[in-house]
């Protein structure tokens, strides 16, 4: 049976608004109840202000929940020590790949400062989950398509698949046209209608399930995929088949361990 893999999650609190359930225990419990086998997380301390500290927090939580939490290591383009630190951390258990947040870091995904970090991802054979946002000068889907073109060895997960309804169609077209660019679908504005269109335009093998937990409630994200009008084959690819293929040996699942 194809696992259900949430490709885009977080842990921790955020300055901009109140998050009622910021902790890993709640997320793992709810995921167990609703049938999400594993979620890849970046810690919001890492996304928001301190990648060195936040990445260690995420690794510690992944250690507490092996096979249930994977880690996206936040890659800071402004930190001269980031490459060396991430090189070591990439070998730690549970790491899925790198997380780029060009809007938070105010640095375009195609900026030269990201280059050594993406070369590191290529060498390690891991994907990059990149926050994407239509019309952002740092992370518009067009910028992410260019990133995928420049780095064919790094699967680029376009976080939020455009983010806003007026950008979904273009993001799907870009994914259809650019090898290595994948649509990760989390976000409050996605509907089943748009998910079905993304699958039709880009192909089910280019769309990845994500929830944005704990920003957003994972039950909402899963419900969209469960209730979308997709074939069983396409739904399985979106829910986890694609993520399992792209993460490869990096993905270990508690739900598939032999007792």
């Amino acid at each position, binding site marked *: 049976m194809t696992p259900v893999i949430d490709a885009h999650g977080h842990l921790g609190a955020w300055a901009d608004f109140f998050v009622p359930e910021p902790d890993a225990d709640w997320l793992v419990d709810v995921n167990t109840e609703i049938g999400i086998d594993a979620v890849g997380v970046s810690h919001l301390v890492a996304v928001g202000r301190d990648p060195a500290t936040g990445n260690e927090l995420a690794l510690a939580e992944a250690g507490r929940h092996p096979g249930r939490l994977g880690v996206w290591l936040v890659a800071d383009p402004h930190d001269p020590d980031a490459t060396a630190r991430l090189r070591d951390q990439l070998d730690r258990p549970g790491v899925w790949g790198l997380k780029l947040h060009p809007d938070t870091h105010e640095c375009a995904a195609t900026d030269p400062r990201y280059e050594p970090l993406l070369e590191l991802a290529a060498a390690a054979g891991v994907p990059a989950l990149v926050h994407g946002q239509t019309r952002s000068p740092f992370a518009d889907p067009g910028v992410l398509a260019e990133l995928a073109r420049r780095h064919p060895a790094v699967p680029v997960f376009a976080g939020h698949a455009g983010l806003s309804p007026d950008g979904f169609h273009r993001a799907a077209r870009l994914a259809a046209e650019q090898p290595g660019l994948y649509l990760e679908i989390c976000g409050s504005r996605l509907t089943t209608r748009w998910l079905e269109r993304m699958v039709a335009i880009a192909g089910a093998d280019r769309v990845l399930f994500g929830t944005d937990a704990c920003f957003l409630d994972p039950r909402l994200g899963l419900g969209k995929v*469960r209730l979308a009008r997709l074939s069983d084959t396409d739904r399985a690819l979106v829910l986890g088949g694609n993520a399992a293929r792209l993460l490869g040996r990096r993905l270990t699942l508690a739900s598939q361990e032999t007792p």
Partner: protein
Amino acid sequence: MRIFDAHRVLGPVPGDHVPSSDIAGLLAELDHLGVDGAAVTPSDELYGDPARARHRDAGHARLVTVPVILPAVPGAGWPDGPGAVVDAAPALVRACPVRHRFALTGPVALGWWRELAAAGIPLATDAGEVGLDRVRALVTAVPELRVLVLSPGYRCLRELAELLTVHPGVYVETGTLAAAGGVEWLARQAGAHRLVFGTGAPVWDDAGPRFQLDHLRLPDADVELIAAGSFAALRAGETP
């Protein structure tokens, strides 16, 4: 468990092609999700001038039409005055002070709200359009008016909790309370009887909130209130 979506739009919407552009399509959407009924705002009234709308009544047993009203000086609003609203006795009315450009707490509108409150007719308004500060100003000015806050989003839980605590006539729609655990947190703060299942579809997602309803970490009685009971109480004029 009966499930009633307290916030849907019936008819074409700008910027998309949606199945719920007609009644048959909307009912098919409800059936697909296992939703028994819905309160629907005619898109003709929402996105157009309510006074000039051509499609007003959904006219189906599963659907409750929520007319859009526009309190204004005579000749510029819809209908002519609050008495016409009271005579029509709708289960709920909707108002869009930003979209339709009128003063939510201006002297004309306040007169309407007082008459509607006296008649037990609740008001629905979109928090994303109006802002919670204006909702608070309204219910402070007319505390007996019951107000259903639509589409509050997931970033204003603190403000919502405060609003619900201070103003017993305020209810909140759940579909966009998307922060992790947000529905349960607000239910613990204010009570499930103040939370109303509604989605805002097709503009907002309906599948996620519907799935979430089956997996809320609340007592069954609370889930039943959110799913349909709270709206029924709001409609019936029961005091929270």
